[in-house]
């Protein structure tokens, strides 16, 4: 009955309660946003386990800092921002993150990878479904392209919102999304060609 009461509350009320130390209200916030946060972190970290761990750290950090949050603002953009920063911080710690600096501007287009054996039509396309091919293609994207595309397509942010979230300019957002789609298209080209031939 009590948990139902929390489920019916909107974010602002939950934040206010959590700011007073109400753990149940915070629990509802975690329930509400954890799946999105884990998904986002998994995309950036390129690993479910690491995404899960970082997402936990994100919510712990939110709990510790919830008193500083301005409850008149939207909650999820704040959570998303913390998630992205936490992932970048984690990647930076591991020295993986040359590509993931928030200040990166991609003036030079990366060379388009030649698909490896995973994408070769002979042994793969009969077995792997389109979904899996796309998943692999997405995984193979450089982190900043993957994250930007994810924010656009899954989180449904506008270019402006992405620019704000990642602290980059709109032109960079646009070029990252275009490049991500180009790379994905080239990865999928073999699959789609084989499909066309067989149909």
């Amino acid at each position, binding site marked *: 009955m009590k948990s139902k009461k929390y489920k019916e509350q909107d974010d602002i009320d939950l934040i206010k309660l959590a700011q007073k130390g109400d753990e149940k209200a915070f*629990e509802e916030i975690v329930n509400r946003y*954890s799946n999105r946060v884990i998904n986002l972190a*998994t995309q950036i970290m390129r690993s479910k386990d690491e995404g899960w761990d970082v997402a*936990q750290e994100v919510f712990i950090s939110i*709990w510790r800092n919830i008193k500083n949050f301005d409850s008149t603002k939207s909650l999820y953009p704040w959570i998303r921002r913390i998630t992205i920063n936490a992932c970048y911080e984690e990647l930076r710690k591991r020295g993986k993150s040359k590509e993931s600096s928030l200040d990166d501007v991609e003036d030079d287009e990366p060379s388009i990878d030649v698909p490896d054996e995973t994408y070769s039509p002979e042994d793969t396309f009969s077995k792997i479904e389109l979904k899996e091919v796309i998943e692999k293609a997405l995984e193979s994207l450089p982190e900043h392209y993957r994250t930007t595309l*994810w924010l656009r*397509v899954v989180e449904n942010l*506008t270019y402006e919102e992405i620019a704000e979230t990642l602290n980059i300019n709109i032109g960079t957002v*646009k070029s990252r999304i275009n490049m991500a789609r180009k790379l994905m298209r080239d990865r*999928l080209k073999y699959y789609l060609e084989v499909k066309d031939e067989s149909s």
Partner: protein
Amino acid sequence: MNHPSFEELSSFIDRELPDWKIKEIKEHIDECPSCKEKLEVLLIIDQGVRENYKEFDTQTFTAEVLEKINPTPTRRYSFRLKLATIGLAISLIFGVSLGIVRDMYRENFNREKQLLISQHNIISSGDMGVIFISNR
């Protein structure tokens, strides 16, 4: 119009173009199978990316987060449990030891009683250690 560029098609599906441009591209696509195909590939990619969104076990996740945030109640509970277990163990050891000592005492007492009976021609004894000695 000319064929829209890849960038224009990409912005088109994101609706990040002015309305007039969106209308223009839409009209072109209706008439151009080649551009329609290019657009479809982009839509397949977006759909595939969307399908990468997974459902995680958020119940376990939430429980783990709450446990990390506030592990104190669990600790207090386990401390009490430990205390109760130790108390029980001590009582058990004490009780068993007491039983052993009592048995040893009784055994000793009986042995001495038997010795007395045999030495002093005693024919019976009472529970409280009162001994009746025969004059025979």
